[in-house]
Structure formats: C-alpha cells, structure tokens
C-alpha cells in the first residue's frame, strides 16, 4: 500500500510538470465550468465528465515531455502497482473535484440561482429538481470515469502516442463524443415516433423514473456511480494484466 501511495505522489509530481499552456487551459476551463455550474447544472455535469478525462489524458502528454515512461521502468515497483496508483489518483482527484462541484450545485439550487433550461425544465415537472440534477451529475461523472479508464487502459496497453497534437485530437474526440451522445439522445427522441421504439423508450424511462424516486434519486445515483466505478475497476484490472504482459 505504501508503494502505491508513493507512486501516487510520483504521479502528482509528474502532473505538476504539465506545460504552462495546458495548465492555463485546464484551470481556465475548470473555473469557467465552476462558475457556469452556479447558473446551469449542465455545466457542472460537463465539468464532472471532463475533469477525469483531462487528468488521465494529461499523463500521456507529460510523459512524452519528461520521458516519464522510462523513469517508471527503473523504479523498483511492480507494473500492476503503477497502474493501480495512477487509476486511484485519477479517480480520487476527479471525485474530490466533482464533490466540490456538486456542493456548488446544491448551494446554487438552495439559492435559486438556476436559469431555466428547455431541456431540463420538462424533467423538473415530473420529479424534483434535486433528483434530476443529482442523477445527471452522477451520470456525467460515471461517464467521465469510464472514458478516463479507457484512456489509461489504452496508454498501458499501447504506450505513449508520440504524434504531435495527440492530446488535442484526443480532447476533440471526447468533446465530439460528448456532443455525439447528445445527438444520439435527440435521435432517440425523434425515433420515439415509431411505436415499437416509443414503447421501449417508455419502459426504460418508467423503470429509471421508478428507481429515481427514493431519497431524491439516491438509489439511482448509487447505481450509476457503481457502474462508473465498476467500469474503472474492470479496466484498471485489464490494464494491469495487459501492462504486465507487454514487452517494453
């Protein structure tokens, strides 16, 4: 355990070596989204989604700059410990950041800061604002964890990408994926004009709504977070095995 904690410290030091321009971008985006969270819960959801992805993808960028991968090769630790430490750091930092963001969201809800939103307002008519916001927030965080774990797994399986602008491309990919999901939801809504799809959507909506009822959505949030955490754990185990089997 001590080794893992030491490795987490090492990873933290590595992360501090991020380029200034990247630091400014990450801090700027976080600040923008945090301020946005005061007015619209969607911003908080986007922040909870993007923060784990930003941290996970930044590791590969930093390691290109500082040859971190070589450093790891000479450290007297097991490869699996390396993977576990980085995954824990990503999950831990993003959980702490998301917790802070969620508190901001709760405060803004208490103070009625929220602006109306065409997408969210119809949902508020059916269930409480707290439930909708909590479920969306935990869903975004779980999705972010899922993507971050995928980045980490790919990194340990294939190594660092040395192509220029890889981070930017990755970032763009994830932003595209984020909006892609939005578009998919919209298409699903349109597909609801077909009776069979409408019935399936109605059934899924009904069961999700039922699970969201108790304790302001706590049961559904726990389930969503468990899915995100489970995905992270599964991919971390996969990364451990694949990294140990990989020829460096």
């Amino acid at each position, binding site marked *: 355990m001590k080794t893992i904690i030491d490795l987490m410290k090492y990873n933290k030091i590595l992360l501090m070596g991020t380029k200034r321009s990247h630091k400014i971008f990450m801090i700027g985006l976080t600040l923008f989204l945090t301020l946005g969270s005061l007015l619209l819960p969607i911003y908080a959801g986007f922040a909870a989604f993007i923060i784990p992805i930003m941290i996970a993808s930044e590791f590969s960028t930093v390691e290109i700059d500082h040859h971190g991968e070589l450093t790891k090769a000479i450290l007297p630790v097991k490869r699996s410990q390396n993977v576990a430490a980085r995954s824990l750091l990503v999950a831990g930092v993003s959980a702490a950041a998301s917790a802070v963001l969620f508190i901001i969201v709760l405060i803004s809800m208490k103070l009625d800061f929220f602006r109306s939103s065409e997408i969210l307002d119809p949902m508020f*008519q059916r269930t409480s604002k707290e439930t909708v916001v909590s479920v969306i927030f935990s869903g975004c965080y779980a999705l972010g964890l899922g993507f971050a774990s995928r980045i980490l797994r790919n990194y340990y399986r294939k190594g660092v990408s040395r192509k220029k602008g890889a981070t930017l491309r990755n970032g763009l990919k994830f932003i595209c994926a984020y909006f892609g999901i939005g578009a998919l939801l919209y298409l699903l*809504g*349109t*597909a609801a004009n077909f*009776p069979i799809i409408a*019935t399936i959507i109605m059934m899924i909506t009904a069961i999700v709504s039922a699970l969201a009822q108790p*304790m302001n959505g706590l*049961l559904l949030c726990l389930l969503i977070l*468990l899915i995100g955490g*489970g995905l992270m754990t599964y991919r971390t185990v996969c990364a451990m095995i694949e990294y140990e089997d990989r020829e460096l």
Partner: protein
Amino acid sequence: MNKLTKMIAAALCGAVAAVSALPALALAEERTLPSGVPFDRIEKKIDIDLDQYKGDLSEGSTPGVASYAAEIFCGDEVLYKGFIGYIDMENQIPADEESVYEWGSITKTLIWVSILQLWEQGRLDLGADVRQILPEDFFQKLKYDEPITVLDLMEHKGGWGVNTYDISVPDGAPIPSLEEALRSSESPQVYPPGEVGSYSNWGAGAAALTVEKITGMDFADYVQQNIFQPLGMEHTALRPDLSDSRWVKENRQRSQSYGFNALSGYRLDGPKIRPIAVYPAGSCTGTIGDLTTYAQALVSDDAPLFQSKATREKLFSGSEFFGESDLPCWSCGFSVEQMAVPVFGHNGATKGFTANMLFDPVSKVGMVTMTNQIENNPVEGYFPHLVFGAPKPGDFGKTTDITLKTDSYYLPARTYAEGPYKFLSYLNAMPGSEISGAKLIGDGLYELASETGASAIPLGERKLSDGRTAIVAGGAATYLPEKWYLAKLSLLTMFFLTAVGGAFVLLIKGKLRRSGRSEKSAVSAILTVGHITRLVSMLTLLSMAAVILGSSGYGIPRSVGVCGGVIQMICGAGSIIAAAAAVFGLVKKKGWQKKAGCAVSLLANCTAAASIIFFEMYRF
C-alpha cells in the same frame, strides 16, 4: 283629469317596476362559475389562456394537446363547448362534436349508478356481503374472513392491491365474459375489507359482476337499458369491442391517440383500440356531448337516472370522510375533490386517452373534458381550476396550532403490496416530513397549506385495526406508515448494487481467465454462478417492472409472470448455494484477500436471497 291621473300612476308603476327589476338584471349579469369567472367571459378567457396550444402541433414545438373536447355547463344550459386540435394529426381530422374519446375510469361511475338504481328498487343492499352474491368459488385469493360489502366495493375498500395480471385483451384474442376476465386476473387481497381505500380496477369489475348476478343481465345490456337509453346517449358504447354501437365503432376508427415529449413532439401511441376485458372498469367510449348529458343528468334535480330524488341525495351525501369530520373525500364511488367548493365526479385514463368529469351538485355547474393525449397534457389541470377554483387555507375550517404527528415514511395503499412487484411500492414512499406541517382543524381533519399559502388541501387521520395510523389524502388515496422503511430500502439498494457489482466481477474474472491467471476451484466456480444468478435476478426484475410500468396499469400477461417467478426461484436457489460455498471458502481458503473476497460474496448472495424472499420476487 282621471285619465291624466291614470297615466301618471301607470308611469310611476312602470318606473317602480323598472327600478325594482334592476337588481335582478344586475344579478343575472353576475352569474359566475364557482371560481368567480362570470358566465359571459368563459369563452374569451379560455381563448386567451389556451391560445398557445393552438399552434402547429405536428411540429412538436408546442407542449400542448393533440386534441381536446370540453364542455362547461350549468344545469341544462351549456355555457361553453370547445374543440382544439386533431383526433388524427396525420390525416388532419379536426376534433368536433362527432369525435369519440375513451372515458377511462369514468366508466366506473356507470357501475355505481347501476348499484344505486338496484338499491333504490330494494334489489340490492349496500351492506350485503358480495361473497354471498357472487359464485362460491369466485374469490380465490381472499386473505381475510371479514365480509366484503357492496359499499366497500364502491369505496375501493375491498382490500385488493393493484392487479398484476392483464385486464386487457391481447390483439386478435376472443373477448372473454366479464366473469372469465375477472377470474383470470384476480388481485390478491392485502388489506382487511372496509379499512383501507385502495383504488382497484378488479374490485370495480367485481361490483359490475354483482350487478349482473342481481339482474340476470349482461352489465353492458343493463347500462344500455337503464342509463344510455333513458338519457338518449346514442353516441356512447360500453362493450370492449364497441359492438354495442356501430356509429361509435366507426368514429373511433377515425381517432388516434398520442404521446408527447419535449424532444420529439407528438408521436402515435400504438394500436387504435385496445379492448379491456374487465370492461366496466374503463371501456366506455363516446362523444363529449353524451358525456355532458350524463353529467347533467347526475346534477339534475329531476334525477332522471333514479326513481327518487332521495337516491340522488344519497349519491352526494358522502360515504368516506377525512378523519371523523363531515368533509367527504369519496361518495358512493364518486370522488370528491375539495376545490373552492366540494366537487364530485371522476377522472379517467386509458392507454391513449384521458377524460375528466366534475360537477358541483349545489350550483349545478360542471365540466367535462376529453383528450387523445396521455402525456404532458396541460388541459388536464386547466379546466377544473378555471371552473371550480382552488381551495384556500381556511376553507375547510379554522386551524389550530396542533400539527400532524407523522411517521418517518408512508407507502401508498394503492400499490403492489404482494407479489413480484412489491419492490415498486418501496420506490414510491412519501416522507412524513412532506405532510408534517398539516394543522389540525378537528375530528382527525387537517389542513396542509402550500408553501406560498395560496392554496391548501385537506388530510385525514384514520386508526387501523393493526394499530397503525393511516393518512387519507383523498378518495381511495390512503397512505400507510411503513416500519423499518429505510432498512428495507437498503436491502433493495444492496440487491441492485451487488447485482451490478457482480457483473463487473464476472468481467474481471473473464479477463483473468483469458490471461491464464484465474483460480480454478469448485468454490470459485460456484461463486461465479452466484454472480450470474444475482445479475439475472436483477435483470428479470427490471424487465418485468418495465413491462408493468409500460402497461398503464393494465397488468402483465400471465406467461410473463410465470417465467419471471420461475427464474427468480432458480436465482434464489443459486444465491443460497453460492452463499454456502462462500462460507466454505471463508473457512478453508488461506490469505486475507481470498477470505475478504469470500466474505463479500457471502454478503452479496445472502442479500440477493433475502431480497428475493422479502420482496416476493418468486411469487406469480
């Protein structure tokens, strides 16, 4: 002179008569709805208020209503008649007087009127035990020995939970008789009769069957002869296949029903007609004009549906009250809404239509609305408030400083209290804190004011035979305190979490196996079976829940219930075996990590087995 005197006298008399008539004229001008809206401004107000819903609905940008038909009346006089939108958007068929809509549960009021007709004829005692009237082997799922009276059926106090099994007729299947339909979809009796108001379609069907047994007539024939024909309701049909009116059946084919959501706008909502086998519970279909005629007959002083005006008075005298007060919440099968004035009636919904019928028997003002849209329907709440207004704090009596003593959590009585859907009731609990601000008026009657103080609702307290205190929030809307609710909800939560967790353990085990790192032992194999059974159990439960939640309360086919029950039994047995293997592993395996894994497996499998047993997932 004499002539002049006569002229002056005549002029004076005319002037006096004119002056004395002025207040009467003024009064006539001031005739208003119970909400305070003057009669002559109804149409203009509706036009302004509902203008936003008259746009191009097909684009889906307006959260309006596919179509509605509405009438407001005062006695025999129709004050407003309006139609908006299309009964078939695709073919642009606008709603009009010939459009037919489904009544939904308003149909049940035909049962209650029939029963009162038989009661006034001395053919049926409201206190009679229906077990003595219906065939001896009719009730198969009774839990209590207490008699079930006719009045219990009218008040939805027969003790039945929500029906699990399908009360509709599958596509193309022959339509069974009412008795056959009831026998094949019997709900379990979960409350002592006469104690708890729990709205039941099945119980209403049993009441209609009682009418059949007393009269020796088919219920649809009885209604046709004793309600529809006397009132001249030629454009209304009751049978599930609408075979009692060719006109209605043909016009019903012109109607479509729609759902609405903010993303896609309007969408067609499945097949055109879905026959309901327990048809007296909600199968009636007809025009707005006929429903208005029926509602007007109910408020009429002439009481055309009854032989005696006393029967009409009985109908509106209240049979169920808030606490021990005289404020009614239910009256011989009719709901009593406490608005600015007490309003009687019923609302209804089928899989594609919604309808509402409300009237004030004192002022004789009433309204009926019908729509072919089942979701996000703004008209549903608009008309009742337009006509009857909202109750204000103080309307039910003077409040004291004593507040309602509440338990932690309440479950709605109208729920799946037994069987595979028992878990759903735990997802719909009402925290006691939501109603703890209600203030006592007297005799178990409380008033709960809204946060803004602009409106209020009454609540009643009722002691049950098991010592619990139930909360009555309206007719057949009773909430029962649930002990250890959070513990039970935690068990359910753990069931879901361990099942989802098990899915990831299976994925990890698969990865380890493929990389040649997995442990090969009997215990490990059995624990894997445990992970699979938990996952299968959860997926089965959610699939079945999705089916019933999507059925709009019509229930599930028996085959689905049997499959689900058998799968849960197998999963329960698998979980118990896996738990035993985990105990074995806990004792035999070495190393804290393996022991911890076995301990977690033991906990997960015990949770799954306990959940399957406690939430009765195995029952069908």
